[in-house]
Each structure stands twice: as C-alpha cells, then as structure tokens.
C-alpha cells in the first residue's frame, strides 16, 4: 500500500495513542493531516515549547475578521500528537483539508453561507465557527448535516457505551486487533447507509487530489484524518470527477494564527465548545498509564480537600469499590467516566451538588489554559481595533489627552461607541471625565491614555470574539448571565445602549427578567424601572428588541405592583425616604411608558396604598399628591386627607412627614401651581384657630426647608391675591402665541390650541411624556422659575423648534405646553 491511512476519532486519546504507536512502527516520509492548508506554515511552531496545548488554529477572513473559525488541539488530540511527532523528527507535515479560503469566499450561486457544521462537532478538523454573538445561545441544528457527527461515538452508543473512549479501550484496544483496519471497515459499513453531506464530498475530493499529488513524490505517506473520511480516501475515484467537484470554487483571502485555548472551551457547555464533554478525563486517560480509576478518584479527593472538604483515603477506597461494582452491574470490563463520577458523587460528595459540580469543573472539564509563544503574529481583535482607530482618526498615545465628543456627529458617535465597547472589554483606553452638565445627552468628555498592557488585554479579549463589537457583545452577554444583582444587569442595559450592542440586548433583557423575578427587594425592582422606561421612550437603538424590553418592563412593573403593598409596612424614616424616591421614579417612568393599562394598574396600586392606615407619612403624603396630580383625587378629598394627619390622633412626626411628602418638589411649585397653592391655602385657612398653634411647628418645618426667595415669592403670591394673576394672562398676545403651536403640536404628537394652554396644572401632569423633561411634579419645574436670566445653557438643545420659541412670553421654557403656568414666573422676576 502506498500510504497508511489512520482514521481517528477527533480528540480521542485512544486514537492518539494508536496513531503514535503506528507512526513509531512505520515512520512515513510525509504526514498528511486533516486541517486547513493555509496553516501549513504554522506547523513549525509546534516545535516551540512556548506553544503549549490546548491551543487552537484561528483562521479568519482578512477583509472581515468576523468570519473566523477555530481548530482546537489538546494534548490528547491525535492530530496534535502526530504533528509533534513529525516536527520532532523533521518529517514534512501538510494539512490537506479543503482550504478555509474556499469556505469564507462568498458562494457563487446560493444565498446560504458556505459555513459548515456550526461547532457542535467532535471533528476538530472541521472548523468551529464562533457563535455570532452569544456563546450561550444554542446553535440551530445544521439542517444539511444528517451524517453522524461523531461516528465512533455512534458505534460506541450502539454497543451500549456512553463514553466512546471507554468503548475504544474495551472493544478496540483490548482485543489487540489492528485498530485502524477495523475502524476503516466499520466506517465503510456505516457510510454505505448514511446520507452524504455535499460539503464532505467536496472536502474529500480535495483530500484525494492532494493525496494523488503526494503519491507522485513520495512512497511512504501517512494520513491522519477523521475515521469518517477513510472509506472516501481509499475509494477509487476518477481524477476528473474530483476536479469537477472542486471547480468554480472561489477562494477568499484568509490568515491563520495560533491562539491559546482552554479545556473549558473544548467542552460543549461553554459556547465555543468542540463537543468534547470531558477534556479533563481524556487528558487523564492519555497521560495516565495504569490505575486510571484509582488515580482519578485520588485526584477527585484532592480537589475536594483543596476546597476544605475533609476527604480521607477511606473515601477513595470506597469510591473505587463502588465504581467497580457499578461497572460489574453494567457489564463493563472497567469503570468509565460515568462510573467514577457516580461513585465520587455517592461516596465523597454526600449528595452535595456543589461538590459534584466542583469535580466536574476542575477535573472532568479541567481548567487548563494553553499558551502561545510571545512572537506569534497578532490576533484579529487587535487588527480590527487598529482598523477602527485608523478610520476614526484616534491614534493610541501614551500621554493622556482630552476628547470632547458631540454625539450628533456621526464620527464622534462611532468614537464614543468604540470607547464604550473597549471599556466593556476591560481596555479602559478612554475614561469618562465628569460631565460638566449633568443631563447633557449629546456631549461626552473622555480622557484618552493608552497603556502598554492594553495589548495583553486585547489578546485576552480575543477569546470573546474577533471584532471589537462581537467581543464586547459576548462579554456583556456573559456578564449579564453571571450578574448576581439586579443593579448590575440594569447597568448593563445602559452599557448596551451606550456601546450600541444591539445583539447583546436580548440576553441582557433575559437576564434582567430573571434577576427581577428572583430579586425580592422591591426597591431594587423600582430602581430598575426608570432606566428601562427612558430607554423605551428615547432609546434610539436600532434593531433593538423593543418589544422584549416593553414586556420586561411591564412584567417588572407588575412585580412591583404585587410587592409594593407588603413592602410599605412599618417603615423607618430612612426606608420611607427610599420608598418615596423609588415610587417617584416609577411614577415618572409609568408616565413615559404611555401605556394606559400599566398606568391604570400603577395608579390603582398606589391608590389603595395611599388609603392604607398606618402607612408612613412621607410616602402617604407623596402618594396623595401623585394621585391628585393624576386626577384620581378631587380637591375636597385631598383637603380631607390633608386635614387628617394634622388632627389630634396623629403623632407630630407623622404629620410633619406627611406634609413634607405632599409638598415635596420644592416651594417653587407652590408659587406656580395655582391649584395646589389654593388647596393648601384653603386648608390652612380651614384650620381652627386653637389647633393652629399645634400645626404651626410642622408647617415651619416643611416651609423652613424652602429657599428664602421661594418663601418670599409664595408670600407675595398669597398677599397679592390670586385675582391679580388674571392680568398677564389676559394680556397674552394670542396671535403671537399661536405661531409656534403648530410646530409644538408636531413635536408633541397632539393638536394644540391656544385655549388648551390655560388648562390647570393637574391636566398638564397627566401628560408626562409631553417633553424631554417630562417630570412636571419634580424639581424640573425649578427651571422656569429661575427665569430667563440665569437659566443654564444646558437646556438650549431642547428648543430647536422655531425662532419664536426664544421669546420669553411664548416659550422660552422647555415645556411650552405649560406656558400658562410659567408665565407668572417671568412676572415675579420682572
């Protein structure tokens, strides 16, 4: 025979041993290995001791590093052992699979990408294509590949083995038969009846043509390839058939490099998995000569001891006995992974799932990390970053410099996203400088400083993805999955928005949903809602699963509504303040959501809560106020409730808190909200003279918290008499005011008329989404009062409507719809 073909099981330690044995017995002149031919040059690195498995060949399209695939090798991979064998002896190694360039090239005729088996195969030689964004999302099953993924595992399963390596040991090795001939025969039998994958056929055609070429040059050829391909390589096929199959394949430009790999990522449960469930066990099988079971269980005891679990030799003895008894019960000659795992669980783990998981993680999968020599060419993530730095004209410099970004500019927006994404990847090239203006939405200030160690972090970041955006996406997804508190996930939602990681959104939302469900603290839940509502309302994240976000927000609100009543009992002052702030935030958010049923639910909840006796004064007052603003309570009812806490039965502290809660939002509100002022005024006038002395300290306490200027303004309003207010309103130049209304109407999405602008404040509050700063009940109202003179420039971007807007009388203010209320402010100042 001109060549010897070794059909192996990819990542099979048994195969690796057998291949080594055969190679030693019959040294070939050239070694052909199933793998991408573009990586031929990289084989020499295998001689370098710096290249320590597990490592992977990383191939990627030069023009689009997002298209990439990994060919991982562990120390027990037959291919790796064969390469090492050949490199040590100076035998030429050639990869002879279909070039990867043919796979990344755009297909000539079909619209489906030519990428093969997305990563669930044990076939190393088949590239493992990194999942697009989230390693945790299961890959859709490849509809074409109906051929067995791991044919040897199928044989083993048919024989009743769950561990193919055990089957190899028991059936193949122990019988002393010529291993590879037997496997080749078995495969020939399987392939006769299995459906053929068209991709396989092309690959095998290419393999055969390489084989023919080598036959002309060498006499002694060894081939290491997946057992599945053996029958195809030995079959007689006419040259022209192979040429026909391979014709018309375009070849993209690809680059290859070695990257460090881990056993965790070889294992199937970590996303980039190669489908090897137990790399640690295989490593053990390959490196341990005899006493496999005993040594394994001794190691397991060691793992437990390292974690402080007392595990004696007696445990190991009993575990070995149990493993052997189990093997006997199951009719197996030797205990396999299933038996040792179950024995370790029953004897050493005391039924603690954490301990079995520990053994699974440390031992069965293993935490071994490979390494590559320092002088290895760069990874794609670095190249992608370099390309983006060039495109965005951001040179890495060691000396720090400030960068002021205007997010309305496209380039600046992309710069901002890049910096945010790098931060996600643990490369804090840019640090956010404290913004000069708290609420500025379109300016970002950064300090840039490139540190040398970022290079290392980028290489590490390479494990998350090949481009900055994909790596950041994968990282955020992972963080969302690992997050333990709701706050962490909420922060990630914002990160997704800032870094524009649209694909990370669904998993982050899912994580948010999970944490929200498990978080029993209603304050955490309430704290999460405003950010979500803002995102929903203003977030301009393209391709974002807004429907998902809306669902999550709605369910979050549902949970808050369910949990709020029980959380509101027996509060300390501090907790009451926290609850008040939380409810304020949620209330604003509900306004932003513009969903009537949610609003109804929320108002219903706080309505019943407000009526509850024994509620702490601060939230009780606040809720009454919210309900008043929402039009749920009318004036007389509010007056009645106002009076209640100030009666004899209520302790003074409660009354003070109540008034504080009711009036919170500052004194300015009283200056401008006529309805509220008259309500308070009427109530004050209502208090009987003899009770007034008792109430006075409480009022002092509340009003004392206001600015002297505010107090003076309130006093002036009361003293001036409310009738006087009618003057300026009547003097309004209706024609002038009408000019901007059309534009405002378009902005607000509803029709405006001049009469509407004289509505009451309560009406205004029932339309919170009216403007960017749609929280009329809170401190935002300060702004109009401050007047035209000293208002900070921050708000300027809000008035882009028309030139008319700059006129003080019509709408200098952010919320033109409330113009009627604002106008008197100008009066006071004037």
């Amino acid at each position: 025979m001109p060549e010897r073909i070794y059909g192996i099981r990819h990542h099979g330690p048994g195969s690796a041993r057998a291949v080594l044995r055969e190679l030693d017995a019959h040294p070939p002149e050239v070694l052909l290995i199933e793998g991408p031919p573009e990586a031929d040059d990289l084989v020499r690195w295998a001689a370098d001791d710096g290249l320590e498995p597990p490592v992977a060949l990383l191939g990627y399209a030069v023009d689009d590093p997002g298209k990439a695939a990994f060919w991982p090798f562990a120390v027990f991979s037959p291919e790796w052992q064969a390469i090492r064998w050949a490199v040590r002896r100076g035998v030429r190694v050639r990869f002879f699979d279909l070039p990867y360039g043919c796979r990344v090239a755009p297909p000539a005729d079909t619209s489906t990408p030519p990428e093969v088996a997305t990563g669930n195969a044990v076939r190393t030689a088949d590239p493992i294509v990194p999942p697009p964004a989230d390693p945790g999302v299961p890959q859709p099953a490849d509809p074409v590949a109906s051929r067995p993924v791991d044919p040897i595992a199928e044989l083993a399963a048919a024989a009743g083995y769950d561990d193919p390596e055990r089957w190899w040991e028991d059936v193949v090795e122990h019988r002393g038969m010529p291993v590879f001939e037997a496997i080749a025969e078995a495969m020939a039998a399987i392939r006769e009846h299995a459906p053929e994958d068209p991709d396989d056929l092309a690959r095998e055609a290419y393999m055969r043509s390489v084989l023919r070429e080598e036959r002309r040059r060498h006499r002694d050829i060894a081939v290491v390839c997946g057992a599945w391909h053996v029958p195809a390589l030995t079959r007689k096929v006419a040259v022209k058939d192979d040429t026909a199959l391979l014709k018309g394949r375009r070849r993209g430009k690809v680059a290859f490099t070695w990257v460090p790999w881990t056993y965790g990522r070889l294992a199937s449960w970590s996303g980039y998995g190669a489908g090897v469930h137990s790399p640690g066990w295989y490593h053990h099988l390959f490196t341990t000569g005899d006493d496999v079971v005993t040594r394994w269980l001794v190691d397991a005891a060691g793992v437990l001891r390292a974690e402080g679990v007392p595990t004696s030799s007696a445990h190991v003895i009993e575990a070995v006995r149990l493993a052997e008894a189990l093997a006997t019960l199951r009719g197996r000659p030797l205990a396999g992974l299933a038996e040792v795992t179950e024995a370790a669980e029953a004897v050493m783990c005391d039924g603690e799932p954490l301990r079995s998981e520990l053994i699974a993680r440390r031992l069965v999968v293993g935490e071994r990390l490979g390494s590559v020599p320092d002088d290895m060419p760069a990874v794609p993530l670095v190249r992608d970053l370099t390309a983006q730095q060039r495109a965005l004209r951001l040179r890495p410099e060691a000396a720090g410099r400030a960068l002021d970004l205007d997010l309305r500019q496209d380039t600046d927006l992309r710069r901002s996203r890049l910096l945010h994404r790098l931060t996600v990847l643990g490369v804090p090239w840019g640090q956010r400088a404290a913004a000069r203006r708290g609420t500025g939405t379109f300016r970002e200030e950064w300090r840039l400083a490139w540190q040398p160690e970022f290079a290392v972090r980028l290489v590490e970041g390479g494990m998350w993805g090949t481009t900055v955006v994909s790596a950041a996406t994968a990282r955020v997804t992972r963080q969302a999955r690992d997050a333990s508190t709701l706050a962490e996930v909420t922060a990630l939602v914002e990160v997704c928005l800032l870094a524009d990681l649209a694909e990370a959104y669904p998993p982050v939302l899912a994580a948010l949903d999970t944490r929200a469900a498990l978080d029993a603290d209603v304050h955490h839940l309430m704290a999460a809602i405003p950010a979500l509502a803002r995102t929903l309302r203003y977030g301009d994240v393209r391709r974002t699963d807004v429907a998902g976000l809306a669902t999550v927000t709605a369910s979050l609100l549902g949970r808050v509504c369910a949990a709020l009543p029980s959380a509101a009992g027996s509060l300390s002052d501090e907790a009451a303040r926290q609850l008040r702030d939380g409810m304020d935030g949620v209330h604003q958010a509900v306004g932003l959501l513009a969903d009537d049923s949610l609003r109804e639910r929320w108002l219903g909840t706080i309505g019943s809560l407000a009526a509850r006796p024994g509620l702490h004064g601060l939230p009780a007052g606040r809720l009454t106020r919210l309900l008043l603003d929402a039009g749920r309570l009318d004036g007389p009812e509010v007056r009645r409730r106002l009076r209640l806490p100030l009666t004899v039965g209520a302790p003074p502290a409660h009354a003070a808190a109540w008034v504080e809660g009711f009036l919170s939002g500052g004194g300015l509100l009283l200056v401008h909200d006529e309805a509220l002022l008259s309500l308070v005024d009427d109530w004050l006038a209502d208090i009987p003279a003899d009770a007034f002395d008792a109430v006075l300290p409480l009022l002092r306490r509340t009003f004392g918290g206001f600015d002297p200027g505010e107090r003076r303004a309130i006093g002036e309003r009361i003293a001036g008499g409310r009738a006087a207010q009618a003057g300026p309103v009547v003097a309004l130049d209706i024609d002038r005011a009408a000019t901007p209304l059309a534009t405002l109407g378009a902005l607000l999405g509803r029709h405006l008329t001049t009469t509407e602008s004289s509505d009451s404040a309560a009406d205004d509050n029932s339309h919170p989404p009216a403007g960017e700063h749609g929280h009329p009940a809170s401190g935002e109202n300060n702004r109009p009062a401050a007047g035209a003179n000293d208002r900070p420039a921050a708000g300027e971007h809000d008035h882009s409507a028309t030139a008319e807007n700059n006129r003080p009388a019509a709408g200098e203010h952010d919320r033109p719809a409330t113009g009627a209320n604002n106008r008197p402010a100008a009066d006071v100042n004037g």
Partner: protein
Amino acid sequence: MNDGTTPTAEALRPHAEDQYAEELALLAAADDRPRPPGWRLSPQAVVTYLLGDGAKVTPKYVGPRRLIEVAVSTLATDRALLLLGVPGTAKTWVSEHLAAAISGDSTLLVQGTAGTAEEAIRYGWNYARLLAEGPTDAALVPSPIMRAMRAGSIARLEELTRMPSDVQDALITVLSEKALPVPELNTEVQARRGFNLIATANDRDRGVNELSSALRRRFNTVVLPMPAGADDEVEIVARRVAQLGKALELPEVPAAMEEIRRVVTVFRELRSGMTEDGRTTLKSPTATLSTAEAISVVTNGMALAAHFGDGTLHPGDVAAGIVGAVIKDPVSDGVVWREYLETVVRERPGWLDFYRAARDA
C-alpha cells in the same frame, strides 16, 4: 410478612413484598446471574424490579436509571445507603422496594424521630423477665436492626437526621464492625451476610441533627431528584391517584388528565422558578411542592368532586388544594402565589377558570 394479625387482603396498605409477590417470583425464576450472599435476586434483577421491564414487571420508580444502579451497587458492596431528597421524592418508597427485592422483607423498620431511643437501634429489655430472671437471652428484646443482622437481611431507617445525634452514633459500630455487642450478656450479635442498612433523610431540614462525619463516612449518598419531565410527573401522579382512589374506595371520578396536568404544571413551574416554556422566571415558595403533594391535591380534588360536586373534576376542586399546598408561609408565599397568578396564570389561554377559582380560593 404479616404476623397473622391482619390478613394481607384486609390491610389498608399491603407490604411491597406481598403486593408484588408475583413479580418478585417471576424475576427470581428468570434470574441466572450471580447473587451476592444473602440476596434473593441478583443486582441486575433488583434494578429491573425497581424500574420495570416494560412487560410483566411494573415500574416502581420513575427516574434516572443510574441512581437505582448506584443504590443497588452500594448495597452490593456492603456499604450502607443513605437516600437523600426533599419530601415526596419517593425515598421511603424506594427503600421499601429495595428491601423487598433484596431480602424479601421490608418490615424491619425503625422510624427516626426526636424521641427515638437507643433501644430502637440496639436492643431493649423485657423488664418483667429481667427482674425475674436477670439478664438472659430470653429477656432481650431485639431491635429491628438486630433482627436484620441475625437474619442477614436489609434494615430500614426512616428520617435518620431526625434522631438525636447520640442515638445516630449507635449505628457506627453496627456499620463498621457489622456487630452489635451485648455487654450485659457478654456476647455480641454478628451480622450475617446479606445484612445492610438503608436510611432516608430529608435534605430540607438537614440541619436538625446533622450526621457526624464518622457516621456519614459509612454511608454512600444517593440524592433522589424531583421528576425531570412534566410527562413523567403527570404519569406518576395519574398512576398513584388511580391506585389511591381504588384503595380508599372513592367514588369513581373520571381522572381528568387536564386537571392533573394543570396541577403538575403549577407545581413544576413554582418549584423550578421558571415557566415550562422557559420564558418567564418566577419566585419559588417555601413549600417543597413534591410530586407526593401533587398526588394528594388531585386525590383531594377528586374526593371533593365526588362527594360535593357533580362528579367531574373542575378547576375549582383543585384550586383550593393547590393554594393550600403552595402557601405555607402566609406572608412571603402569598406574594409569590399572587405574582404567579397575575403574571402567568392569567395570561395563559384556557386557564381562565382556574385563575378565577384560584383567586377566589
């Protein structure tokens, strides 16, 4: 193994070895594999007895095969077996059937309680005789464990962690030396081959009387899980409900699979903290919500339907039972249940009746 007190047919609940005597005989006849000393069946046949063979032998336990294999192998290596699990995971059920299959006797039982005394593990005295004759063999009252040692059969110990620690430790000699000294008579009882011990413990209240590490070391632990799939659980519930209905002679109620499935779904979802479609995460109540409880909720509902209803099982009949099973702690579980009702049950098509009934219950 009646002592002639109650004929088997009259027993409210016959012992496993009596109820399934035919199956055991069938297995014994066909069993040609080596049997460990003192065993009535080979380990393989014991596994078959527990899991069923799809034909004559009915499954006693529906669950992972490997657990039963580990349990049987443990007993075959003469290590004691500790079955752990939350209430209602068939620990006692499995231990009874293991004992019945291995020794043909599941009655050598010690129930662990806070009041279990050392005599229950070792031996007691017939005081009348002790006073009259002094310490003699005849005055000795052997415990079930001592009898099992003499007979070479399996002894069962229920709720091991509920026994006081000092009583638990009386087991150490039995398990390590396989002998029980009787200093008063200056003799000892040595266990015959075939003797072994199956203990069960509830891992929810493991902290009650934690096993000493010396004792724990002598047990192999097998954790019995909650049923893995909804279909499995529906099958378990339906089968047990049918058996119980027959045994308690409840009036015939058409076993409404729909309601059984609903009860199982509610229990599974609350237990796992996730809806079956995997879309919504839920809080779990403090209650265990075991399969056994699902069985009792359905049985209860059937009794309600038969005696007070129109003879068919309606959502309302099971709703009250479910609420009672879920809400053990009125404060925290109440919130969990309301949240579940409002976010999951209410939205689910076809569940409106149940939602109303549960809300009113």
